[in-house]
């Protein structure tokens, strides 16, 4: 078993951006992503999911520091002004059977 310290970037934003973000991840070279439905409140107000335009997604991408920064920068630059967006990065240790892992 092999473990690697890496980054977990979490993006909470409008459901309307789901497809666009997925395209972005593919283009920027992320190995994967995980999405859950969410609701919340932030600077842009309450987004409680009562109406399709009012629902959030919570997106996680596990990747190295460099890609996490690239993704964060891209999202802040592209969507922060016009959309409800929150981005944060944390440290995690990914566990895989061997150094290469399944995906790389």
């Amino acid at each position: 078993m092999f473990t690697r310290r890496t980054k977990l970037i979490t993006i909470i934003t409008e459901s309307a951006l789901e497809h666009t973000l997925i395209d972005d991840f593919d283009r920027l070279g992320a190995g994967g992503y995980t999405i859950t439905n969410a609701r919340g409140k932030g600077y842009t107000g309450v987004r409680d999911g009562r109406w399709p335009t009012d629902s959030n997604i919570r997106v996680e991408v596990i990747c190295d520091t460099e890609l996490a920064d690239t993704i964060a920068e891209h999202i802040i630059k592209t969507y922060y002004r016009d959309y409800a967006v929150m981005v944060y990065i944390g440290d995690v240790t990914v566990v895989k059977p061997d150094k290469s892992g399944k995906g790389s």
Partner: protein
Amino acid sequence: MSLDPVVLFFILGLCAGLVRAEMRLPSAIYEFLSIILLLAIGLKGGIELSKQSIGDLLPDTMAVVAMGFVLPLLAFPLLRYIGRLEKVDAASVAAHYGSVSVGTYAVAVTYLTAQQIYFEEYMPLFLVLLEVPAILVGIVLVRGISKNTRWGKLLHEVFLGKSVVLLLGGLLIGWVAGPEGVESIAGLFFDPFKGVLALFLLEMGLIAASQVSCLRRYGLFLLGFGVVFPIFSGLIGGGLGVMLGLSIGGTMLLATLAASASYIAVPAAMRIALPEANPTLSLTAALGITFPFNIIFGIPLYHKFAEYFHTIGG
């Protein structure tokens, strides 16, 4: 004025929302109901189209599409120069009011049916035709016909939105299968139609009530616009109806379509096409003001319009 039960359901939702009762329809159910409504309306229209010569409808069709382009162009200057909205917000609100609301249409049909007033059954064709033009106008008002705009993606979003696909799909299936074919699926789409509409309106009432808190933020102009513009566009729609030689019922429906404002297709399209527009502003107007106004007061009023126009026009 005796209210139809479906309107009573809307009022129940409105009241329950205003007193903050712990109640809402699961969103999956709301979607289910709206899918049934869209398909049922499409199917009804399609059955009728199967009896018509499409060629005969072409002039009317073009006139209605033209109205779809004109209405937002009338709304825009009002919003921009009287309402002093930002350009992009004015364009976005104009797009909402130029397009149509399927829920409002369904209530209007229910109104006519309850009073046994005849109308041209192919009206759903106009409904689907009116969805899109205003969206295009809204975008062009802000972006111009700039090559930078990702038109491919936008048109895909606009023309392949859920409501267009379901209405159009219903129309085509109704057209191909004809009255007897569609009869066999009446047990889901036609028999429970009015009950489905009632439940749909219950949730719409709850949603509309939740918009009220936003109302204060945007002040009196929006309130006024949300009531006065529908009356104005209802007159235009009614006038066009008479010019096209529609029956009183058909005239009233075209007036209602003109007067109604989109709260599903257009908000979604605007979020992609004009993200810098304030989405709450348009939604509050369309959902919190115009929809309740139309359901409760507008529809009988547009009926009056149609009768009046027919008196002077006929």
